[in-house]
């Protein structure tokens, strides 16, 4: 049977949040990190888990202590990463890499909280690196955006990275 829940959000909300994602991507492409931070809730959670390739039928016990993460960040940690990138000593970013995000497959759904929306999207990050080579990083994202006054702020982002072996020498980018 067709599952009609959760409800797709109203047209205005869809437009607002889609534009929000595009705007966010442009801020990050342009390294306008301080403006990006203003799009985040104080209690933001920004997370990307590690995973492994397993047989579908595999029933082995979950890993003790947990899978571990690529990102397990709150606002303070995101600021720490930005402090590092802004230090002037991150040689891998100088000269700057050519970075462009393509955001697609945006799907906006009502959340349980009245002032929140769940937003699914896909991001492809093109990085043309200092060595002249291009790397593409692809990830799925499930966000919770919260309406604060007139604007939407990111409350949580769960990122699923689609690479079992990271094809680059660093992750000096935000997804």
């Amino acid at each position, binding site marked *: 049977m067709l599952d009609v829940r959760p409800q797709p959000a109203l047209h205005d909300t869809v437009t607002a949040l889609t534009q929000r994602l595009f705007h966010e991507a442009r801020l990050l492409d342009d390294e306008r990190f301080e403006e990006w931070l203003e799009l985040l809730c104080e209690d933001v959670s920004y997370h990307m888990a590690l995973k492994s390739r397993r047989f579908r039928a595999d029933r082995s016990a979950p890993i003790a*202590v947990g899978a*571990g993460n690529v990102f397990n960040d709150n606002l303070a940690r995101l600021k720490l*990463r930005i402090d590092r990138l802004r230090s002037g000593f991150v040689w891998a970013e100088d000269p700057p890499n050519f970075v462009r995000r393509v955001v697609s497959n945006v799907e906006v759904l009502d959340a349980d909280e009245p002032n929140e929306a769940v937003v699914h999207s896909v991001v492809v990050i093109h990085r043309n690196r200092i060595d002249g080579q291009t790397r593409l990083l692809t990830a799925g994202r499930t966000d919770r955006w919260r309406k604060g006054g007139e604007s939407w702020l990111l409350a949580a982002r769960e990122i699923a990275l689609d690479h079992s072996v990271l094809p*680059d020498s660093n992750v000096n980018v935000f997804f």
Partner: protein
Amino acid sequence: MDVADLVDTSTGRQSRSIYSSEPVYRQELERVFGRCWLFLAHISQIPQPNDFFRTYMGEDDVIVIRQKDGSVKAFLNTCTHRGNRICRADRGNARSFTCNYHGWSFAPDGALAGVPLENEAYFGELDRSKFGLVPVAQVAEYKGLIFGNFDPAAPSLEDYLGDAKFYLDVWLDALPGGTSLVGETQKMVLNTNWKLPVENVCGDGYHLGWAHAGAMMAVQSMDLSGLSVGNASANLEGGLSVAGLNGHMALTSLDGVSGYAFYPEPKPMLDYLEANRPTAIERLGKLRGEQLWGSQINITIFPNLQFLPGLNWFRVYHPKGPGQIEQWTWAMVENDMPEEIKTTILDNQCLTFGLAGLFDNDDGDNLAACTEQSRGWRTSQMDVYTNMALGRSGAREGFPGDIAAGLVSEHNQRYFYRRWQEHMQASSWSDVPAYNLNSLASREAVDA
């Protein structure tokens, strides 16, 4: 190719061709990876019968499997019929491995257990006992670490590790519960020759204050004893560069706390160290229990295993040709640690030396560029140098090895290349020298 010309450890010189030459690389696969004890897995990663873990020995794909009787076997991950890969998963639990191509199936002990159409097409004439999975010649465990060796003539793992065990045990045997690797494998492709990350971590305290200056400025708690941001100063007291142990190395501070003082909130870690210090001293003796356990230590087991008590990461480098590796990292914990501390360690390791590690992300491009700058027609004929603090090493009371003071020196790198050259020149293990310089055992014998 004359390996004698490629490295000169008496002056600290390496030919750049050792990072780019295809013939050198093929010889490394044979004489280094084909002969040395290579880390396969930690027992904590395959706790149950039929648990398996996939890894590499050099470029050879290997499955490590826990047996019903608790022992561990390792096999080449290739079908004995026509060579297909048997196991495609990274890890898991399986009662058998069935090949995707024609359906031969293998038991966890390697036996060929099933062959489709065995009677109809092979007329019952296939001798299954001759087509089991091919085992790794030697598999052995040292205090939770499982190693494999392709060479049946290699010395025992115990002899191979030699006096490096003095340093290894600071991590592996300080407390009765032993250790574990935790988290999924953190895998990254780096366009570097495999030797460059090893020489970086085995002895290169020199790069910390400069290559990682950005991270050191952002993460104020990361104040490595004796080093400063921007390499403005270096204090050679309080640290040791230890080598001369069959190619294994240690780079260690001596305060017994610095490894854990790195943590953003170090108090629970420091309380843990204080509470367990008497046990560590009882098991390791006063010198190691007080000065090494809890210190930041970089341990290198030749050729490609490194782990760092304190920062608590554990890593192997799998070569993929002369110019590329897969770098695999895990967090490591002592089993006696309370759960909150284990969780903190996994979290902090991912933050600092994980795939998006604030520190780790500084190293890859330097290593890749050093590799690329050894590939050109002209650059491949040039040399590079590890000639810092030549001839300034010796014995140190209570510690085995040939030891230089401080964390900033190129002493360990020279021994790494010396060992590499010894292996590359030897046609078999009988030509590989064994040395444990300033061995404590021999010193006691002299004293007696």
